[in-house]
């Protein structure tokens, strides 16, 4: 994306037009809303520098930082190995059922890791499903369990990115390399791997972010990270003084992850020219086919079939044969209302966010200069704020500026904006970059007003990207736990909230129905997103 911008700068811009205030003002407001919480949080941490330093240099904080980094390293490595390995199997070998695997292996993205953690606890704990069946218990607590759950439930990121990179790489490159007499091992290291570097970077980034910020999974699996510390700080009465310091550290860590991702992505871009592009020749698996099928199938069973089967069994048991305890306790009926709320919330947030992402994206295409870049940069801050840090930043800002706004729907939507507008913007921007500018200019030349040009020319061409961005935001909001848990108005329990409250109360069977509905609600948009991504080369992250 950044390179695309540089290229665009080289194109001679048409004669200077008056500043497009109609774009500038809404974009500036959006940018301010997005950047304000982070700026406030950082100012707060720096404003109490002695405390911040004391917190950041305390042995406990350093221990948490080390634990977070270790988990990020382990989980993202596992995620990458699984995702890239499976992508290679699906795209570059003659594994049967390629079209099935392409969709199926992306579907675990519909299951948030905290749901995976609940399932793991019940399959692998002492007295769990496995223990009762064959007498084997592998308690999934602590470091190993947390790394396994995050790695397993985030591998589709690596799978999708690597698959896309492998699909777009042409066979011609390999063949050219072969004519130079290089060995196939050397071709892998010098040709294939550099092509995959951006996918590797993105594939490592998302699991790392989960390792840092996903307090739900870590609280359930009993592994303390900076994310759990933020959660405990946010839910402790009065004691939030150290939170800003921890939040600052989470931001810096995320920036570190982003830096690694950017380094891996590198400055180089590889453009297969359409004319010479040919699909790579698949490797023959021959006798290794059953083993490959078993590996792909095993991971799919573990990450998709087992969770759904277990949740379905619980939900069925809870609905049909409620135990005495369950009869006494609340029924599962709240799950359906929560599903409606979740869908409405995700749809509203996605609509608002994508609509607000259009002006800044246009601004960047139309206007070169510091205002456009300042606004663009401000809109990117969401990437640096993991979910629980967004909540912390929004809570501190709201409390000191407008406490009466706390726990209202607009604040929830605002928090989702802070978190996901950057991602939505990326989708809209990738569409605008591909838009033939001449068409719009021709329309303007024929006397159409900008609004009409947008409606008649740009919107139809942008539609796919807008839909993809919308679905992406929708999906993320649907699965989000921190914002809905800590910023929701009374009575606005969403599916993740219902799942979480039941799980932390120890009534896992009651987490089943909302969990199942959440997976069902996420699966359909995910399939739509994959469809668009495959068609238009849109990034899913």
């Amino acid at each position, binding site marked *: 994306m950044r390179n695309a911008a540089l290229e665009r700068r080289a194109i001679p811009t048409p004669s200077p037009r008056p500043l497009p205030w109609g774009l500038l003002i809404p974009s500036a407001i959006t940018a301010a809303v997005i950047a304000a919480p982070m700026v406030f949080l950082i100012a707060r941490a720096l404003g109490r520098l002695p405390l911040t330093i*004391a*917190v950041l240099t305390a*042995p*406990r904080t350093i221990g948490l930082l080390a634990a977070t980094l270790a988990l990020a390293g382990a989980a993202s490595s596992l995620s990458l190995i699984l995702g890239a390995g499976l992508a290679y199997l699906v795209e570059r070998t003659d594994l049967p059922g390629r079209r099935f695997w392409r969709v199926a292996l992306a579907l675990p993205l519909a299951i948030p890791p905290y749901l995976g953690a609940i399932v793991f606890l019940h399959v692998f*704990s*002492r*007295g769990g499903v496995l223990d009762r069946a064959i007498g084997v218990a592998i*308690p999934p*607590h602590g470091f190993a369990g947390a790394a396994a759950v995050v790695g397993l439930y985030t591998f589709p990121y690596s799978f999708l990115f690597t698959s896309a990179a492998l699909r777009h790489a042409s066979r011609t490159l390999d063949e050219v390399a072969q004519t130079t007499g290089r060995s196939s091992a050397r071709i892998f290291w010098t040709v294939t791997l550099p092509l995959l570097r951006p996918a590797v970077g993105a594939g490592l980034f998302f699991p790392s972010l989960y390792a840092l910020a996903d307090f739900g999974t870590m*609280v359930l699996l*009993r592994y*303390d990270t900076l994310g759990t510390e933020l959660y405990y*700080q*946010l*839910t*402790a*009465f*009065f*004691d*939030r003084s*150290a939170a800003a310091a921890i939040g600052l550290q989470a931001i810096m860590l995320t920036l570190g992850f982003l830096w690694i991702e950017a380094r891996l992505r590198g400055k180089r871009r590889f453009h297969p020219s359409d004319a010479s592009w040919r699909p790579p020749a698949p490797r023959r698996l021959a006798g290794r086919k059953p083993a490959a099928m078993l590996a792909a199938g095993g991971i799919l069973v573990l990450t998709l079939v087992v969770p759904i089967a277990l949740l379905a069994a619980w939900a069925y048991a809870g609905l049909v044969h409620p135990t005495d*305890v369950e009869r*006494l*306790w*609340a029924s599962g009926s709240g799950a359906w*209302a929560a599903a*409606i*709320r979740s869908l*409405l*919330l995700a*749809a*509203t947030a996605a*609509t*608002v966010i*994508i*609509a607000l992402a259009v002006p800044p994206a246009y601004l960047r295409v139309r206007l070169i200069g510091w205002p456009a870049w300042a606004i663009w940069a401000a809109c990117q801050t969401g990437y640096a704020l993991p979910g629980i840090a967004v909540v912390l930043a929004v809570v501190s800002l709201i*409390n000191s500026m407008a*406490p*009466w706004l*706390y*726990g209202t*729907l607009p604040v929830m*939507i605002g928090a989702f904006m802070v978190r996901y507008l950057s991602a939505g913007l990326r989708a809209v921007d990738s569409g605008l970059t591909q838009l033939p500018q001449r068409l719009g200019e021709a329309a303007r030349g024929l006397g159409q007003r900008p*609004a009409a040009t*947008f*409606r008649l020319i740009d*919107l139809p061409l942008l539609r796919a990207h807008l839909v993809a961005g919308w679905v992406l935001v929708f999906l993320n909001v649907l699965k989000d736990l921190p914002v809905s*848990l*800590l910023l*929701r*108005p*009374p*009575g*606005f*329990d969403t599916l993740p909230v219902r799942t979480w*409250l039941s799980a*932390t*109360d*120890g*009534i896992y069977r009651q987490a089943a129905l909302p969990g199942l509905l959440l997976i069902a609600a996420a699966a359909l948009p995910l399939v739509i997103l994959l469809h668009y991504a495959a068609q238009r080369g849109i990034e899913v992250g």
Partner: protein
Amino acid sequence: MRGFSAVVAAGLALLALTSAAPVVGQSGAVVVYSGRREPLILPLIERFRRETGMQVTVRSGAIGELANLVLEERNRPRADVVISNEVSVLEVLRREGVLDPYLGAAVRRIPPAYRAHDGTWIGLSARAHILMVNRDRLAWSRLRAPASMLDLVDEQWRARIVMPVYTNEYIVGWLSALRLVRGDRWTELFFARLRDVRPVLVAGGTQVRETISRGEAAVGVANHYYYHLQVAEGSKNIDIIYPDQGPDGMGVLFSPTGIGIVMGGPNPAGARRLVDFLAADRRAQEFYAKSNFEYPLLDGVPLHPSVRPLSKFTRMNVSYQQLGELRESTLKLVREGVLR
């Protein structure tokens, strides 16, 4: 701009819809902030709804988060009632002046020891702060169950204890009680030694009982009903210990859960009816005793037969008012201790 406007309009319409739809909770409903586990309170709320025809909206969460919310909303309260699993939080809210006194005839039937003297909060049920042990795990390590909370700092319990995180309300309340009984300096040292043996820290009592039942720790610090809930779920290898008994023992921390009406809340009449029902209705008290194994506060409501009766153990001699007063400085102690 038509397409774009349509998208925006659809978004606004959705926003309006979400604000108005019954899925958001109805206007005129009694709004409850509840720090208690949902299974312990929702069935009663449901019964209240059925009998009175009044709507109730519940926001469950950690009591710390909800108490913060009540304070932050003090100029525009949105909650009518706050239910706390820990008494010192209610005491802090009382001293902050965000609770509305209510001493209706019904709530006066709760013994004065278990409600604020000015009627700002009323006890619902009471719990004992105890130890639970995993018998197999003790036998495996050839350890004897501790008889006192003070034994926990012993080296033999290194990495074998499970308890809620130090900022958890129960732990803050417990440390405040120790300060009252043993003094500040002593408690500070005790807390430092406790951290030295590196207990496993979890989110709350539910996680304590799960960890103990699976044998992943030998001894757990929690409220008594978590033991009974775990036994009700089928665990056979766990025991409960009421620590610090005997003539020299300081006794068990025994404290109520409670409910308070938020000052200036939107539905004071509904709030009072709900408080009457949850505190003083016999069926509510029977529910606390029967389903959650708690100590009922209303005369004549029987204790669950498997729970140790009040007459059979010594309680710590602390006033809840003092626990509330110490709360903030105890948190400071915890914070500084953890930082060190």
